[in-house]
C-alpha cells in the first residue's frame, strides 16, 4: 500500500523498500537525501521529499546543537613561531587572529572552542595536547592559524595524507599521525570553500597540501590558514585580519549546511 508507506516515511519510520535507503543516507550525511529507487512509488517519494525539507528545519531549531568550530592559534608559550619582524613573534599574531575570528563566529551562532586564549597560557600545551582537545571537541571544522613574514597573501593547507575511504577504514586501528586520512576528502572541500570566500574578499589566496603534524592527527574537517603579508599590509594589520576573518566566518556559515560538515567520534591518545 503506497499511502501507508508514505505515512510511515513522514513519521521517519523506514519501510523495507525505499525507506531504508533514505534512512541510510540520513544517517550518513546528517540530513535525509532523496535518491530515486525503482521500488519507490510516487506517494513514497513525495513523503520522503517532505521529510527531507522538514527534518533539517526541525533540527536547526534545537539550541543544544549549535555547531562547534575549533580554533587553534598555532605556537604559544616558549614556541614563539616565526619572527615576523624584529620584535613581533608569530604566536602573538595567531592568537590575535583567533580571538578576532572567535567573536565573528559567536555572533553567527557557532560555539567556538579555542586551544588557548593568550600567548602565555599555551606554555604547557603540547602539540598532541592541542589535537586531543580538538578531537574531543566534536567540531564541524578545525582551523589551525599561522602567520608569516615572507610568503605573500593567505595560504590554505590541507593534510597531504592520501585520502582513505571512511567505509573501508572499518575497525582497523588508526595511527595517531594518520588519523586525518579518512577526513582528507572533507578537509579538501572545506579548504576550497574557504579559498573561494577569501578570494571574494579581494585577498590573494593559495590552496595547497602539506605535511603538518598539527593537521595529520585531527579527526575533523581540518585546514591550516597562514596569513602572509600583502603589498600594503602585514599579517598583524587589524583591517587585513578582520577582512580575512569575516570571509572565513562567512564560509563556515555556508559549511554548516554542507553534507561534509560532520563530526567524528574523536581519536584521543
Amino acid at each position, binding site marked *: 500500500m503506497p499511502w501507508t508507506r508514505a505515512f510511515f516515511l513522514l513519521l521517519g519510520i523506514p519501510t523495507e523498500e525505499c525507506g531504508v535507503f533514505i534512512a541510510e543516507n540520513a544517517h550518513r550525511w546528517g540530513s535525509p537525501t532523496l535518491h530515486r529507487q525503482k521500488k519507490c512509488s510516487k506517494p513514497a517519494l513525495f513523503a520522503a521529499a517532505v521529510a527531507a525539507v522538514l527534518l533539517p528545519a526541525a533540527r536547526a531549531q534545537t539550541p543544544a546543537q549549535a555547531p562547534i568550530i575549533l580554533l587553534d592559534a598555532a605556537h604559544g608559550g616558549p614556541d614563539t613561531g616565526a619572527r615576523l619582524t624584529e620584535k613581533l613573534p608569530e604566536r602573538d599574531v595567531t592568537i590575535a587572529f583567533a580571538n578576532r575570528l572567535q567573536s565573528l563566529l559567536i555572533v553567527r551562532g557557532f560555539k567556538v572552542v579555542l586551544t588557548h586564549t593568550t600567548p602565555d597560557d599555551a606554555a604547557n600545551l603540547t602539540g598532541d595536547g592541542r589535537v586531543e582537545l580538538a578531537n574531543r571537541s566534536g567540531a564541524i571544522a578545525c582551523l589551525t592559524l599561522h602567520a608569516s613574514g615572507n610568503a605573500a597573501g593567505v595560504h590554505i593547507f590541507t593534510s597531504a595524507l592520501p585520502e582513505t575511504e571512511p567505509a573501508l577504514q572499518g575497525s582497523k586501528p588508526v595511527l595517531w599521525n594518520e588519523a586525518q586520512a579518512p577526513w582528507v576528502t572533507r578537509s579538501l572541500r572545506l579548504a576550497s570553500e574557504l579559498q573561494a570566500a577569501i*578570494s571574494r574578499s579581494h585577498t590573494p589566496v593559495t590552496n595547497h597540501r602539506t605535511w603538518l603534524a598539527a593537521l595529520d592527527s585531527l579527526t575533523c574537517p581540518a585546514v591550516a590558514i597562514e596569513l602572509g603579508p600583502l603589498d600594503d599590509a602585514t599579517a598583524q594589520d587589524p583591517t587585513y585580519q578582520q577582512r580575512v576573518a569575516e570571509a572565513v566566518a562567512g564560509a563556515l556559515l555556508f559549511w554548516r549546511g554542507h553534507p561534509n560538515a560532520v563530526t567524528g567520534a574523536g581519536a584521543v591518545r
Partner: protein
Amino acid sequence: MIPRYQRILFLALMTLSVLMAGYLWRVHQRTITRLNSISNAATPIEAPNGATTQTEAVTFLMADDAAGTITPSDRQIALPTEPTIRLRAILERLFSDYGQTDSPHPLKFDGTAIADVFFLPLPLTPPKPPEAAGKNTEEKTTPSPTAFTDMAARNGYMAVINLRQSFADAHPSGVEVETLTVLSVLGTVHANFPQVSRIRFLVDGKTRPTLAGHFSLDRVYPSSDTTLQSTKETP
C-alpha cells in the same frame, strides 16, 4: 799510521753517504710539492670514475614564493654518473640557486646545504641470519651504476637526504615557505631519479621534527611530481 786501503774505504763510504743524503732530500722535496698540489686543488668531491665533462639536461622543480608555484625548469649541467654523487650535485645546484639573493624563493645559509645523500634498497628488511647470508654472497650494498637500475626495476630505492643543521637552522619559518622548499626537493628527485620511490630527510644524521617550526620533516615521503600550478586567486 792508518793503512791506505782503510783511508780509501772511508772516503768511498763518505761520498756514498753524501750522495744518499742528497737523494733523500730531493725525494722529500718532491713529496711536499705533490701533497701541496693535491690539497690546493679546487675539487671538493673526489673526481668519480666515469665522470663526464659533457653537459646534460637536468629538470629542476623551482619554487616561487610570490606566485606560490613549483614549476619544472631544464638546465644543462655536467654530472658524474655515480648515483649518490649525482643526486648530491643536483641538490647542491638547486640550493645554490635558492641561495642567490635575487632568487624567487630566497634561502640564506652559509656553506653547503647537504651533508650527504645515500640510497637504501626497498623494502627495508632486517639483515639475514648468518647462515642465509653465507649462501648469498651478493649482498645489497651501495649501488653501483648498473646494480642501481637492476634493483630499482624490482623494488625502488629510498633516497636519504642528510641536510646540514646550519642550513635547517637558517631556513625561514612558515608553512608556505617550508612546504615549497621540501616539495621542490621531492619533485627534483622524482624528475631525475625514477628509481627512487621514497624520500627521507635527516639533519646532521638525526631526525628533526620540523624543518623550521612547521613542515614535518620526520616522515617518509613518496617520490612524486610536486609541480604546483598557480592556485592563487587574486581579485
